[in-house]
């Protein structure tokens, strides 16, 4: 079994658009954008691929920070950026198709911005 090499490059928010544009110019496809709540901050990973070479740009943002949309560079980014707002409450500005919080219909608003606490949920069906 072979595991692929994966590189993660931390970048600042002001660099994001330029770096995404550079990836597009170099012929990378956008694989995914994903968010993770790490402690009190959020890590947002922009993953790209070219000829099976996987590269990840990472920005770290505090709650309440606005980030620019890369949907002007990668048109399909709107699905990920709407997801990030709906689940984490991070505002993404300038999305080409902005669902304004209605992309996911969740019972709890920005459900993933809250960590419920790591614990086992005992099975009640005994």
């Amino acid at each position: 079994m072979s595991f692929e090499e994966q590189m993660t490059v931390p970048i600042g928010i002001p660099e994001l658009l330029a770096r995404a544009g550079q990836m597009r110019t170099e012929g990378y496809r956008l694989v995914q954008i994903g968010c993770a709540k790490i402690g009190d901050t959020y890590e947002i990973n922009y993953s790209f691929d070219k000829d099976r070479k996987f590269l990840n740009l990472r920005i770290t943002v505090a709650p309440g920070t606005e980030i620019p949309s890369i949907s002007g560079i990668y048109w399909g980014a709107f699905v990920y950026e709407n997801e990030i707002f709906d689940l984490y409450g991070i505002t993404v500005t300038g999305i080409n198709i902005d669902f304004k919080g209605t992309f996911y219909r969740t019972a709890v608003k920005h459900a993933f911005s809250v960590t419920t606490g790591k614990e086992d949920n005992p099975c009640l069906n005994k």
Partner: protein
Amino acid sequence: MSKQIVIPFGPQHPVLPEPLHLDLVLEDETVVDAIPSIGYVHRGLEKLVEKREFTEYVFIAERICGICSYIHSLTYVQGVEQIMKVEVPERALYLRTIWSEYSRLHSHLLWLGLFADGMGFESLFMNAWRLREHILDDLEATTGGRVIQGVCKVGGVRRDISPEKLDEMVKGLREMEKELRTLTNVFIHDKSVASRLRGVGILSKDDAYYLGAVGPTARGSGLDIDLRQTGYAAYDRINFKSVVETDGDCYARCAVRAKEMFTSIDIIEQCAKKIPEGPVDVKITGTPNGEYFSRAEQPRGEVIHYIRGDGTKHLVRHRVRTPTFTNIPPLVKLLKGVQLADVPVVVLTIDPCIGCAER
């Protein structure tokens, strides 16, 4: 310019087994824009990593989808194994590859049936699903489950397949292949099917690449994006070539799936010949501390499980990017310019699995 009207398509529609909604902007009968909506059944399964240990969570990962369930569990355990530097036994890698290809066969046959049904070709639909039963029977015989297999675990697999059973499976597949050939000949060569699909819903190679298309949607547009080529599980020991079509229309996406089933049978046969003796799992000690983007090729295309652990028995984050999710932007693009009557067929050609996308 004609007056524009908006027609809602879905979430309940005869060709949609799952809820996807499209606002179709029409000029006369031509679609000029399409705005997708999902989110009707968002389950938040990823959040359950906070409540389940990483070894138990594989059962939840597998339940993300009822069709490509097995490959979800495989992708998840591969990610954990990479973080924990687990050496999975060779035999387990081959078994994982065999079940992955069975999963692809049953998914493609399911899709071919649904697609035939969407075109109004009922007998073709029934024949595709009749053949799918053979695949499900083998999955049940070897894993215990037809839909949810539950055989993948961190460190290997839970069940072995005897050499006699492997021979029987290969023999059965080779016999089924003749019927499969007859079935796929209709999809590939029948004039009425071709006239319904050729030149409809065209996605150019460039659009497919930059809009994020994966799986048969990408390969139907001439892109050789197939994660099996990265060599996960035992794919690096197997000789196979990805099926790529270049027309980018509904016919091309259908042809890719039809032809891929024969590749799957070849892969299973090679695995049955090459599989070594030995254990099928190793004991796991410790907890995952690190991160990895685990990637695999599902029947619908590239799936990604982002796994992050902090050294405790619960993961910090598990994030799944499913193929359908990334195929939504290409769908919007390829709907533009099609006739309203073609919309169901075009939507079906990306093989939308909203259950996956809504995880």
